[in-house]
């Protein structure tokens, strides 16, 4: 067991994948000499060389498009998009090519490409550096979409994403990059798409992923002081979704609050609410409530704390589930 920050755990996971498979490449803007703007790829170019850790030209569509070509030649590229708001120039290559090419080829072409996206707010950044675009990609057939919330998961999930024969959009909670946790570097690999109950409870199920998981755990501690028991489930994977684990929890508690940073309207929480309603209708004591960003562009950072779901807004939603 070793203590690592989430960012370092990702680095160790990529390093291990590169050691195990010479076809694994890392590519993106500033990922080489600089080690990435968040230092997640720190030292990889020094150890694996410029051919395997590629400082690319500054063009996101080009990065993903050439990663597809490298995959067609038998490589396993791990692409870094520098910030969530910069993925949109690459969206055409991701949605139109990466997601659909396996089906288009009748299964003859493999696309083991990982697109890493630091996501979410809370770091006081300028516009386009705090977004949560997961719903766009979760909606796109052909992609797998995962979001890690802690260092231990980061280490295993990035290795599993790299090993996946399908393209994976890998969301990293950028404001949690520096959070430390114990990581067992030799732990067996869990099901990459299994949700995890990270805080058992009995009164309300709180569903979260990525950066919101920690906020929800803090909310659970605060609720416990008031005698209310929250069960926090870390989804880990948005597509595919571990709906069985989710419904099992909601059937036990009878109440559910979904938390994410992205705007609530048309967000991933809507999919969760619909599926839970279909499967747990007779167990529900209240509608599934959603806590998330407002239906606005991400606000200027001095007021982002009001936009991001925080402990109070989560507890407020929990209280409201008892109002029906």
């Amino acid at each position, binding site marked *: 067991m070793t203590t690592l920050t989430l960012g370092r755990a990702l680095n160790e996971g990529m390093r291990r994948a590169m050691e195990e498979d010479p076809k694994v*490449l890392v590519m993106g803007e500033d990922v080489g000499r600089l080690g990435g703007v968040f230092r997640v790829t720190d030292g990889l170019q020094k150890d694996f060389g410029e*051919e*395997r850790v590629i400082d*690319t*030209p500054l*063009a996101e*569509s*080009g990065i*993903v*498009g*050439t*990663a*597809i*070509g*490298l*995959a*067609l*030649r*038998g*490589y396993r590229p791990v692409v870094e998009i520098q910030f969530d708001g910069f993925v949109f*120039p690459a969206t*055409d*290559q991701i949605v*139109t*090519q990466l997601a*659909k*090419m*396996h*089906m*288009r*080829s*009748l*299964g*003859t*072409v*493999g*696309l083991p490409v990982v697109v890493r996206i630091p996501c979410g707010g809370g770091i006081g950044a300028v516009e386009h550096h705090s977004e949560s675009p997961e719903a766009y990609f979760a909606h796109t*057939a*052909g992609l*797998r979409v995962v979001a890690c919330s802690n260092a231990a998961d980061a280490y295993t999930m990035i290795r599993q994403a790299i090993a*996946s*024969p*399908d393209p994976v959009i890998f969301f990293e909670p950028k404001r949690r990059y520096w959070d430390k946790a114990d990581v067992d570097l030799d732990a067996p690999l869990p099901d990459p*798409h299994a949700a995890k109950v990270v805080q058992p409870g009995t009164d309300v199920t709180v569903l979260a992923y990525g950066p919101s998981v920690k906020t929800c755990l803090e909310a659970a501690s605060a609720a416990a002081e008031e005698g209310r028991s929250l069960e926090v489930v870390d989804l880990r994977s948005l*597509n*595919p*979704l571990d*709906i069985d684990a989710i419904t099992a929890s909601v059937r036990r508690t009878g109440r559910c609050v979904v938390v994410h940073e992205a705007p609530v309207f048309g967000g991933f929480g809507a999919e969760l609410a619909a599926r839970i309603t279909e499967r747990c209708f007779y167990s529900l004591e209240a509608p599934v409530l959603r806590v998330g960003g407002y239906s606005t562009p991400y606000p200027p950072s001095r007021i982002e704390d009001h936009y991001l779901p925080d402990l109070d807004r989560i507890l407020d939603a929990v209280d409201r589930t008892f109002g029906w």
Partner: protein
Amino acid sequence: MTIDSMRAAPHQGDDGGPGLVQLLTPEGERVEHPDYPLDVTADELRGLYRDLVVVRGIDREAVSLTRQGELGLWASLLGQEAAQIGSGRALTGTDMVFPTYREHGVAYCRGVEPIKLLGMFRGVNHSGWNPAEHGFHLYTIVIGSQTLHATGYAMGIQRDGVLGTPNAGAAIAYFGDGATSQGDVNEAFVFASVAHAPIVFFCQNNQWAISEPLERQSRIPLYRRAQGFGFPGVRVDGNDVLACLAVTRAALENARTGQGPTLVEAYTYRMGAHTTTDDPTRYRLKSDEEAWKLKDPIERVRAYLAREGLASETFFRSVDDEAKAVAADLRKECRALPDPPPGAMFEHVYAAPHPLMTEEQEAFAAYLDTFEEVPA
């Protein structure tokens, strides 16, 4: 030099200009070019002629099949046979092609059976061949996307360490004049240039992006774009199969020996409609088409073969018969192409098992089972 003297005048249609590489004139005269010597045997010449005629026959048949409702759409290569056969016959087994949806002639050169090209146009699949088997990637519909895939593939060849060895291969990306306006194509030029990647960018400038003429895409000749990206650009007579063969062969060889990318602009003309749903009478003059008809890629080879006594009337007749036979087979095979079962839409969405696919596929099958069997 003042800034204003560097500004390009608006593009005017031209005959290809003085830089055009040509080895066989529209009249069928063999000419030499100092940079592109080409030794070609009578057998090879007859082979190229056969390719051109057969591919035109396949294309004509596909247009007919569309008119008869057997295909939903077809993108005709009429007029571009020489660009495709010339470049296609320059390829070797280690090269990898990244085509658009109009590269039927290149597909033919790569051994893709014509019937496999029809599936996506009939709507029975999105693509019908295994790219690795033919060194021929899937047709790409969104304009220009494949140039990045080709560039990435070429970066992979570099990393395999095969350049300069007998196992060396090159990537070749096909695209049109309209595609040169796309961001992806320009990004591909940047990535390929910076990486010094083994790739040939083969642009068939057929003068039209559906209804928009070249002057809506560029102020300067397209091959000159390459200079700004830092690699050579060559304009070749796209209706001259020999020039296309020689220039592409040289560009591929440069790529395979580690000398980096080349842009080849094959200057040609789209004699047909953009696709079978298009109507060129709305945006171009018949007289332009007539002028280009005189530069036909097949007639000049036939004229040369006949004048030099390299082929007999019997040969020409046998090639016509062969083209007709290939077309007849294609017609028969097309009509026999079965629709996929409805559940096929769930296949190959993911390479590894995916619970949502399984759930929806089972629910769909169960739903279909609720309908009574209709007796045939």
